[in-house]
């Protein structure tokens, strides 16, 4: 195993390309890149906190565009108290939505949280600022788990720094669901059968189509027309049996309307924390592993405050409080040292190794494929 090797971003991309071209097997790819490792808390001395200089010079509002249930309000309040900058938080349902808003222009965002597979597209469309790491003294590349940072850097320029990583599986309410599903095959079969009217899928193409592809054992990222056609057929068969198509599944899971939903790590942590009968399952065929990044859109109005906010949230002490609240694992070894043992041993955050090996990072081509966009739209309007 490659547990002790640290793979460079360049090497990671090379391996990814080779893997995508099919010249290496998935097993080789995962082994080399270290993706097979479960917890992988990297070592390294804990450097002292780097003080920021001019918090006093900041003012105004910083527009933070992020995902639901993804921050610790105490941290945000503390930032406002310290800097006098008000945080205006917007939440989105999908990367497609974020991209659409940015493409339409004049969003007014200062900081946003894109997922790994979107960054090269943003760079290509010139929608994203290169980051000046000098302004992020509390970000330490050395303490980052490299396999989660590579896609933030394009041609040697850093455009985004990692926030959290996680997986996309599904939550089940074991009070009502007794079948104990462990795979995407069972997920879709139960949807069409005994759990009709109780299952939710996400309202965006990447995971919904990706997990339908997994039913047949295809790649989560497949752009093959025939495979996509099979996935669409499955989705259309399942549609009448779904409870809803909605990426905001917490309310419906909490009040018992939905019993199963496609879910991300942190939502699963939060649901399980409040309702222990809700469990998280990673389909054994695989599915998605991802990293979310902090980035600054082109033309952000309050760049100073944007850097300050990112730096604040990446400060290990603060970041650890974020993790405790939202339940998404951090990519930063310094942060992980400060997170409770309970969290570090939680299988929702750190699934078993054999489940992780099958997961794939979403690819840029998956995001921008017009056929996948249209299949999702047809599925929703069917």
């Amino acid at each position, binding site marked *: 195993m490659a547990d002790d090797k640290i793979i460079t971003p360049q090497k990671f991309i090379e391996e990814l390309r080779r893997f995508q071209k099919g010249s290496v097997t998935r097993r080789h790819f995962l082994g080399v890149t270290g993706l097979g490792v479960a917890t992988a808390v990297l070592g390294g001395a804990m450097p002292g906190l780097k003080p920021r200089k001019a918090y006093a010079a900041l003012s105004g509002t910083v*527009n933070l565009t992020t995902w*639901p*249930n993804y921050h610790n309000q105490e941290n945000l309040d503390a930032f*406002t108290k310290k800097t006098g900058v*008000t945080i*205006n*938080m*917007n*939440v989105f*349902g999908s990367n497609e939505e974020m991209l659409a808003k940015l493409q*339409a*222009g*004049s*969003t*007014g*965002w200062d900081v946003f949280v894109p997922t790994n597979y979107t960054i090269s597209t943003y760079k290509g469309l010139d929608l994203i600022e290169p980051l000046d790491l000098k302004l992020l003294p509390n970000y330490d590349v050395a303490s980052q788990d490299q396999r989660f940072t590579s896609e933030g850097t394009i041609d040697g320029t850093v455009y985004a720094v990692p926030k959290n990583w996680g997986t996309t599986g599904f939550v089940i309410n074991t009070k009502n669901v007794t079948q104990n599903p462990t795979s995407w095959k069972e997920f879709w079969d139960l949807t069409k059968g005994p759990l009709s009217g109780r299952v939710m899928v996400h309202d965006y193409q990447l995971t919904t189509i990706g997990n339908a592809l997994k039913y047949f054992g295809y790649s989560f990222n497949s752009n093959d027309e025939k495979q996509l056609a099979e996935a669409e057929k499955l989705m259309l068969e399942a549609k009448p049996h779904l409870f809803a198509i*909605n990426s*905001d599944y*917490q*309310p419906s899971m*909490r*009040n018992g309307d939905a019993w199963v939903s496609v879910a991300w790590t942190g939502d699963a942590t939060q649901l399980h924390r409040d309702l222990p009968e809700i469990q998280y399952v990673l389909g054994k065929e695989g599915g998605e592993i991802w990293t979310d990044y902090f980035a600054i859109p082109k*033309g952000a109005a309050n760049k100073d405050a944007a850097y300050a906010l990112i730096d604040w949230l990446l400060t290990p002490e603060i970041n650890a409080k974020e993790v405790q609240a939202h339940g998404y694992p951090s990519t930063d070894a310094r942060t992980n040292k400060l997170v409770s043992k309970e969290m570090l041993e939680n299988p929702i955050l750190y699934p078993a190794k054999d489940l992780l090996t099958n997961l794939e990072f979403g690819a840029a081509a998956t995001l921008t494929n017009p056929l996948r966009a249209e299949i999702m739209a047809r599925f929703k309007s069917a």
Partner: protein
Amino acid sequence: MSMRLYAVFIYIFLYAPIALIAFFSFNAGRYAMDWQGFSLDWYGKAFTNPIITKALVTSLIIAGCTSVIATTVGTLCALGLERMRGSLRQLFDALIYIAIMVPGVVIGISTLIAFVTVFDAVNPALEAIGMARLQMGLWTVIAAHVLFNLAVVVLIIRARLAGMDRSLVEASEDLYATPFATFRQVVLPALMPSILAGLLLSFTFSFEDFIIAFFVAGPNTTLPIYVFSSIRRGVTPEINAIGTTVLLTSLALLVLAQFLLRPSAKAR
């Protein structure tokens, strides 16, 4: 008797959901539908939450500007159309009905596309001469809202004009009043109830609108946009508290309006 029973049923149907919202605004628990005891905390939280208060202020500014502009422009337009005949008048009539008929979602989309197209064309030139770039903002929302409400106002004012007693105008002219004096002393007072109705309606439509603002608000968050995203995320009773407050405020305004309008009704 059965009619009365039916009416009672409808009023329950109308008010049960509102009562439910108000009831859960006093919930001590974190989740709206999960009663954990009585508390006023969410009112305190809602009105100290800077995002909510800012969204409220944003919505009030947009609705305030929209209603004043739409009512002014609409009233002028109705008065002008009254003096017009022929194909130009027909064109305006058609535009008014099209503005009302085109769904909000299409207005949102089409104005978004148009704004983006114009901005893309104009911004490089503006930047070259050192001026600020054009951006989506409150003004784009107000502009799109005025368009829709303007048409409504024209219809309201026109209905009033059609029912107006012309003899007063004629009498005023017989007494050699200047046209402007006739307008100010005869026409305007007679139109006042409709102008107020136009203000009130356009304020409400603008304050309530989600879909148009969703497309053209740029970085701004209006209250409906905030409420919509909160509902999707799972609402804390904070939202119930705001809803209840807005309802009580508008009720108070309605009662106040009723009270204020009464003397003028007598005067008529």
